[in-house]
């Protein structure tokens, strides 16, 4: 019970800061904070898969693309309420995640990494094939326009809802099964856990989260969805965010999301690395350094600080 109180304090602090931010930040900074919220959702989703279940996905950008196109197309064709499109994106990505995950997850984790990488390269090519419906290289323009403040509010509200949802899932039977799978697949099977079921479930959930993030990602991009927005590097960024986040800590996921959400705009104002691809150099170098020096990611740093504070 004792451990719950600091966690609650953290939550309240984060919620309070988030609700004050719109009043103190300018419009541009609000858009940046919304960007962090979007990556928060994606990194949180991937953390369920990688951090809790021990499986790795290199293709969550593909699910962001599916979610983003869902929102853009529904908005363009039917003028659907945007929040509704996010729910649809959530559902579609969940199903696609199950379908893609099932064959890959019968085997060792390596295969999921392979399959998701191929998925991430493949999905952005599909709009080129069905260009009359999905806009080809020119992309799809949603008919709605949203303000940065709307985006900020919806992104963080969605983050809060999905965070609670993740907490509910992870504290229950499914969460225990996920952790058992991560710690030892053999022991998990021996305790009666259906490996493929739980692995696929974790993958579907995390894909659904990425779908919602993708919806918001497109809206943040002025409602414009195009293949080039969802290149392989986007997928890798989410994974990098999850690696920086480390395992299962609110602060870790926040740090990971802030890292991938803010770095592009920060580095573009720095002279040397600010060139178009300096960002990638920083991303790549940073994740390698984190893996070498701080294997548990930011979460382990928080845990260490906490222990340090107690001692």
């Amino acid at each position, binding site marked *: 019970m004792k451990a719950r109180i600091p966690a609650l304090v953290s939550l309240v602090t984060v919620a309070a800061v988030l609700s004050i931010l719109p009043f103190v930040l300018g419009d541009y900074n609000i858009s940046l904070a919304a960007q962090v919220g979007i990556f928060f959702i994606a990194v949180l989703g991937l953390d369920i898969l*990688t951090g809790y279940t*021990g499986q*790795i996905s*290199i293709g969550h950008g593909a699910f962001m693309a599916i979610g983003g196109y869902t929102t853009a197309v529904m908005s363009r064709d039917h003028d659907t309420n945007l929040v509704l499109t996010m729910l649809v994106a959530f559902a579609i990505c969940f199903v696609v995640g199950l379908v*893609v995950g099932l*064959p*890959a997850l*019968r*085997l*060792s*984790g*390596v*295969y999921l*990494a*392979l*399959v998701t*990488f*191929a*998925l991430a*390269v*493949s*999905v952005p*090519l*599909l709009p*080129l*094939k069905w260009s009359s419906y999905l806009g080809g290289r020119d992309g799809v323009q949603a008919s709605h326009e949203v303000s940065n403040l709307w985006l900020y509010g919806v992104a963080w509200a969605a983050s809060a809802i999905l965070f609670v949802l993740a907490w509910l899932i992870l504290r229950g039977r499914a969460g225990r099964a996920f952790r058992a799978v991560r710690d030892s697949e*053999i022991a998990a099977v021996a305790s009666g856990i259906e490996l493929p079921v739980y692995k696929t479930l974790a993958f579907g959930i995390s894909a659904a989260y990425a779908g919602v993030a993708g919806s918001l990602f497109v809206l943040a991009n002025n409602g414009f969805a195009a293949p080039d927005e969802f290149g*392989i*590097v986007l997928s*890798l*960024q989410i*994974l*990098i965010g999850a*690696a920086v986040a480390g395992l299962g800590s609110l602060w870790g996921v926040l740090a990971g999301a802030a890292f991938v959400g803010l770095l592009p705009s920060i580095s573009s104002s720095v002279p040397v690395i600010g*060139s*178009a*691809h*300096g*960002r*990638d*150099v*920083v*991303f*790549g*170098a*940073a*994740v*390698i350094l984190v*893996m*070498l020096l701080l*294997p548990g990611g930011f979460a382990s740093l928080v845990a260490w600080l906490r222990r340090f504070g107690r001692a």
Partner: protein
Amino acid sequence: MAAAATSRLESLRNRGAAFGGAPFVGLILVAVAAGLVVGSLRSATFAQLTVQGLALGAVYGILALALVLVYRATRVINFAQGELAMATTYVAYQLIQWGLSYWEAFFATLAIALVLGTVLELALIRPVLHRSAIAAVIVTVGLFVLIDGIVNWIWGGDFKSMPSPFGTKIYHVGGVSIARLYVGMFVVVIIAVLLVWALFRFTKVGLGMRAAALRPAEAAFVGVRVEWMLAIGWGLAALLGAVAGLMTEPSQFLLEPTLMQPILVYAFAAAVLGGLESPAGAVIGGLAIGVALNLVVQYVPAITSELQTPFAFAVILAVLLIKPTGLFGHREVRRV
């Protein structure tokens, strides 16, 4: 580590059982080859596409072989393998800009790739390897982004072109026109594959590398420097990747930072088709994917050239659904 060693040992022991499927696989391959020959005799277009497919497929195969070598040595899929190949191709481009001839640059690049791969393993992969496979995979993902950024930084994202290594001559064989380029690509790749095979089969270093990959503990007992062998394995993989990159460039007629991304997916498909652990399977898988992609795009109206990569993705899924061990793989048996 011990568990990993046991599982490898077990898989070694169970290899005998896998040969039960070998005649069946052999039969399929012979049937496919016969089909290709018959089709080629009936249609010049078919023949041309098949030959092209074999040349392109050889390139996918050699990159798949690089992936398999790394996987066997360290149980890691190197997602940066394609980007590494792309980067070394840029090195060759730079060497040619500095005045080397194509083939001088070719061999210099292979040497550089060998060193680069070895150093990367020692510096970046080794420290995280004992922790988990996921950590190592994430490092290769970081490497992917890093290399991409560095190449864009140094050379820019615009198209570059290199002199053609094989000229533009076209051979005519009974109504079928075959560019010398494709013959050259195929020959270079096959020579590289044979040399690597000979290295593994006939030299002491090769024996050491095989031992280190299959039974690290026992190999260390008899004096094999396991750590070095695994690092050299990465170096060799980078070298094979460099061959793949250098042979991809002329087939695409241009050099750009995204050069190897689709090729890497084809190589994944090839490796999975071959069983992920089998070097011969990787090469045969590559040839199969190359020919299949070429023929499918030509003869199946629904699959246009944009769908080549999604098709490769579908192949991966299909193999995992139908025969997860691929053509030449074997089931991994784990003992608790």
